[in-house]
């Protein structure tokens, strides 16, 4: 009997030890199961896409002209299509809604397509089960990484560059105000994150209160406009005392159009 009691106790202890070991490994196991399942869902989605969607959206989701838009395109994932649609949810929700409900009426962006996007979910009268819709969503969302990586930010047409002799058009101070505060139509710059417009308040860079006056005095033969122009496109040409060179981004020249530059200068010149 003693043998039974001893072995039995050892077995119970061993069982508990295994359970404890399993418990400790649960978080890692659960997350690997999760990613594993998403992988399988994408596989199932790929097969469904091939039979149901490829005829309109192309075998690789690249879209077919005048039939259906590309689904592996950056603008779907970077939020611009969502915005034009007035969609407030995530990209995934948008894709799910588009697939499940279809587009019985053409959306503004794709009004020229003669075909309509059919309804797919059984919940709205389509042929596919809700879980199949999920597989398709996972498959479409699986293009995201590649689509976003492929698309570099579009180059700015008519960039102002770093040449101070470039002729600038007439500036619009009101638009410059918006651009400066990151809200401009057709261009936004994070100037106000570093520059306060209140006297004496230093964020990352110096306050620009009164810059219209002080700019004229910075460099002997530079008028205020020219100095401001140089400060933005070549910030290190003149570094304000007590600040370190290189703090202000050096790339605005490539990001701004000549019009943007002129507008910002016009706005800064109002800061007397």
């Amino acid at each position, binding site marked *: 009997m003693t043998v039974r009691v001893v072995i*039995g106790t050892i077995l119970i202890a061993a069982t508990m030890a295994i*359970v404890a070991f*399993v418990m400790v490994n649960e978080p890692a196991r659960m997350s690997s199961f999760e*990613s*594993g399942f998403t992988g399988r869902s994408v596989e199932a989605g790929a097969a469904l896409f091939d039979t149901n969607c490829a005829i309109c959206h192309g075998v690789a989701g690249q879209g077919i002209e005048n039939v259906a838009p590309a689904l592996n395109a950056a603008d779907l994932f970077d939020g611009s299509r969502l915005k034009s649609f007035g969609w407030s949810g995530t990209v995934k929700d948008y894709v799910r809604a588009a697939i499940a409900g279809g587009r019985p009426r053409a959306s503004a962006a794709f009004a020229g397509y003669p075909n309509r996007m059919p309804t797919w979910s059984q919940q709205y009268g389509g042929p596919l*089960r809700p*879980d199949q819709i999920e597989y398709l969503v996972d498959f479409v969302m*699986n*293009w995201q990484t*590649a689509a976003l990586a492929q698309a570099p930010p579009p180059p700015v047409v008519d960039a102002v560059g770093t040449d101070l002799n470039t002729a600038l058009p007439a500036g619009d101070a009101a638009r410059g105000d918006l651009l400066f505060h990151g809200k401009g139509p057709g261009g936004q710059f994070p100037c106000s994150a570093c520059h306060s417009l209140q006297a004496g308040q230093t964020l990352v860079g110096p306050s620009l209160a009164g810059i219209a006056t002080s700019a004229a005095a910075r460099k002997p033969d530079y008028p205020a406009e020219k100095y401001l122009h140089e400060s933005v496109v070549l910030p290190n040409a003149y570094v304000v005392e007590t600040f370190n060179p290189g703090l202000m981004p050096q790339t605005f020249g490539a990001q701004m159009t000549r019009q943007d530059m002129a507008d910002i200068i016009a706005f800064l010149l109002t800061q007397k």
Partner: protein
Amino acid sequence: MALFKLHLPILDDIKSKGLKPAMLAKVDDAVVRITAGLNIGDIRSVLRGDTAPRPNPRVKPHADGFWLHMKPTYYHNLVTPLYPEFRLGWLSLYFMVFETLTGVFLMVFYTPSPLVAYENMLNIMSNVPLGLFMRDLHKLGAEWMVLVVALHALRTFLTGNYKKPRQFTWFSGVILLILTIFLSFSGYLLPWDQLSVWAVTIGVSMAEATPTPWPLNLLGEKYLGDPSFIGTAINNIMRGGPQFNASGLLRWYLLHVIGLPLIAFIFIGVHYYKVIIHGHSLPPEAEKVGEDSAKRVPLDQRTYFMPDILTRELFYVALITFFAVFMVTAGGYHAPLEPHADPLVTPLHTTAPWYFLWLQGMLKLGDKVIWGVVAPGVIVGTLIVLPYVEVGPSRRYADRRVGLSAAALVVVALSMLTFMGTPWYAVSSSADQEVVAALVPQTHPGPLRTTPYDELQVGAYDAADWQSAPTPGLKNLLRQYEIELNAAEARDAMFLDGHGRMTIEQWQGNLKKITFDVTWTKPDGKPGEFTQTVYLGADSNYGD
């Protein structure tokens, strides 16, 4: 005036005896209440293996407590070792409890609706700590329980325990066997994956074949327009409609978690009560023929429940629990979860659970009504009436040559039928499909999906050319492809000169598309072609 008087006797004890002795006495008191009669000293003497004092305090829990009220206080020395019972009845009972506990855990995370049931399973496996562990234990426990209960029935048959006076014990046992099998089977549908829906579909379509006897068929024809309305009704009840639907799932769920367990618990009570009423039978050779001495245990032949039987029973429970836990962890047993149920896609090799394979084998013999309805009915009927018909008085093996041979024959027949139930026997799908199915089976991951993703290099390959494949994984896979093709040529006269190609394309950043293309020549010289496409993700994790 005090509204009530608070009197704590413990305070008086502490005053008179001192703190420590008073507290010890209190604890001892509590132990006696919990064990219904044993104090700490008694328990220690039990554990030390001391001979019982007289009067024996170890019988009190049987007399006063609930849990042991049916347990005998002593057994005959001859039934304490492994033979003749093998503790199979006890283990059947333990599995019932084990399944209840693990099952309640799963119930917490499960909703019986086709819309979310499958998602719930994924959630249990990916999001619930110990969820996968509990699910595997529940599934493994269910299979072992069927096995243990069946073996218990077999042993009570072999040692002749169904004979007088234990006919009713046997009858209640047959009911329990049926309940156990249906408990296991009713759990099958719940995950709502391909396996579950199709396995249950096979079962239900068998029940649907229940004939409508004359003259009911004529009445059915006349008033319902359906001469086989009994089968139709059974089908509608079991599936919730012509097709499996939400009502059908709900019914199977309720059967699984309430209906069957409730009946099973009642019958276990009846069964065990009968066992105790008649006493545990001695080994057949230990008794005179026709005599039943189980209830008269001489004083010098007694083994007391405490500690001997108790430690034996607990020992087997510890052992089997350890085994189960070991199997679902280090042993690598995992309850399968196939793709979501799809009534439109019939999987290539659906099989019933192993304990129904014999039935599936019988169905391959011919008529659905005879082999699927009548034959199982006859088998159950025979089991039930057995003790009332086979009334030979002797339980000795030597006197029961006919009965024991018949039992051996039944076991052999069941094994053969079980083999016939597997897809290896009389499969009807075509050779080309079988070749591809061997590489990418629908019921488990299989060779392609377990090949490392990176070794599946993009390109087009020929099975015959497997030796020149660029990676070991591909080589292995293509070799298997070629072996399957050769086997198909050898097996199927319609499949001549088979060629296999495999194309791997990069489909998305972490997704490959693999196309199998089998071509062959038919006996009349015409070409045949079969193509199947599979997608494989880098993170799909089929490896384990």
